[in-house]
């Protein structure tokens, strides 16, 4: 046996390891992102959501994780391309007849297409909210809450006041004032556009099918198939990542669209 072997990441298995680890990291992010975004459903004129958005963009450890996240998306997509290119080259002449669904599920054979839909969505999504929040024109809101009673008054405007420099929270005469960018309103506004709503819903369907195969596939790739736990992994892949998470995300644009009608 030859004892000189190629480096890990030049092998097909090493590249798949990268695919699975970045994929699982993205899955863990989906859970966190969903829990945070559920605050959009609170009927508080965006108070909880805007505070959460500020926290997510300004708390240092989260900033580090968010850069890891952007890197993961890019690495995952680049390796998807590298692997797909190699896979296509491995069969230069195709079949006249194909077995289709007789020996495998269609989503497992079309991970690249499903992933590309997700990628298009991610680009739109970042432009819609991340870019607007950081660099674009975001509306402004001021919440004045009476601490004793919880009564809240708001002052909002479509533009940031010239004096605005990040969220301000102060208390005065038993009134808590929060001045912040109003991402909640930006969300409500963006989801008035039926084409954006459609793109979001389609992308969540693609994500569902990507993860119904992808989540359990990632465990197979890292070699985890312990008989006692693999049934649990497969159910989580289908029910949590294939059903609950995509439906909850898809509900957000639909909620704002129908609320605004």
């Amino acid at each position: 046996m030859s004892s000189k072997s190629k480096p890990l990441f030049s092998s097909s298995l090493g590249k798949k390891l990268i695919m699975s680890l970045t994929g699982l990291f993205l899955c863990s992010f989906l859970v966190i992102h969903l829990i945070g975004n559920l605050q959009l459903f609170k009927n508080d004129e965006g108070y909880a959501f805007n505070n959460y958005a500020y926290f997510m963009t300004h708390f240092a450890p989260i900033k580090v994780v968010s850069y890891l996240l952007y890197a993961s998306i890019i690495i995952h997509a680049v390796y998807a391309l590298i692997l797909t290119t190699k896979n296509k080259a491995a069969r230069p002449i195709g079949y006249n007849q194909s077995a289709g669904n007789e020996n495998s599920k269609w989503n497992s054979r079309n991970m690249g297409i499903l992933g590309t839909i997700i990628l298009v969505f991610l680009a739109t999504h970042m432009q819609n909210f991340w870019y607007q929040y950081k660099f674009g024109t975001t509306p402004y809101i001021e919440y004045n809450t009476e601490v004793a009673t919880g009564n809240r008054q708001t002052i909002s405007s479509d533009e940031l006041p010239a004096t605005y420099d990040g969220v301000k929270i102060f208390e005065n005469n038993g009134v808590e004032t929060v001045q912040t960018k109003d991402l909640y309103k930006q969300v409500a506004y963006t989801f008035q556009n039926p084409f954006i709503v459609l793109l979001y819903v389609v992308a969540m369907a693609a994500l569902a099918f990507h993860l119904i195969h992808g989540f359990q596939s990632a465990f197979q790739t890292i070699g985890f198939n312990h008989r006692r736990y693999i049934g649990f992994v497969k159910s989580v892949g289908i029910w949590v990542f294939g059903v609950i998470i995509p439906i909850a995300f898809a509900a957000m644009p639909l909620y704002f669209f129908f609320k605004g009608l």
Partner: protein
Amino acid sequence: MNLTLKVWRQKNDKSTGQFVTIQANNIADDMSFLEMLDIVNDDLTRKGEDPIYFDHDCREGICGMCSLVINGRPHGPNQGTTTCQLHMRSFHDGQTIVIEPWRAAAFPVLKDLAVDRTAFDRIQQAGGYVNVNTGGVPDANAIPIPKRIADEAFESATCIGCGACVAACKNASAMLFVSAKVSQFALLPQGQTERYERAQAMVDQMDAEGFGNCTNTGACEAECPVGIKLTNIARLNREYLTAKIFRQEDVHA
């Protein structure tokens, strides 16, 4: 029964092939698929034409020589059978049957339906064996092996090296074959000495031969004539990644 065959004909590994339509007449239900091709070839030979070239040897499902993608399915429509064990009763009178060779860059077509599967041999030569110094015959039960493990290793060892897994995979990946070959030794005490070296050497050779990557679609498992399981692939991933990440020093790689 009478059948219409659309058969891939290709002169040699240099030429480009094409489908040729050939009639197969008076075929009995109890013939095997290969016997059906024999009848067609007798006809062609009598007419002075070149017979259809296809691989076969044992014709009892144990050697792994027969191949053929039949209507899009490696080894035909039945589960757990090789083409030599496929019978014509699985088809009906008047049916059109499309017959193609295994398609993979690593399995170039030699002629008509026969492909060069020596890539598998080279993977085996890279590590699919155990080095033992021969000597006296060892006592049968000198090395205790739990039955459960022995059975699992045996199941992996039933791979006949036919290549249907590669033919079925959308990526022409050889993972099921390589995982079976690595597993049969990884599970047994005799395979431990070279365990991690073997996984690395065989994966390297698999990649060098130009097979695709594994997307875990499961098409290989569905088409494997002897029922090699995907659990073997998980084991190969584990063996290889363990070798690379934790055992690199041990194997001087």
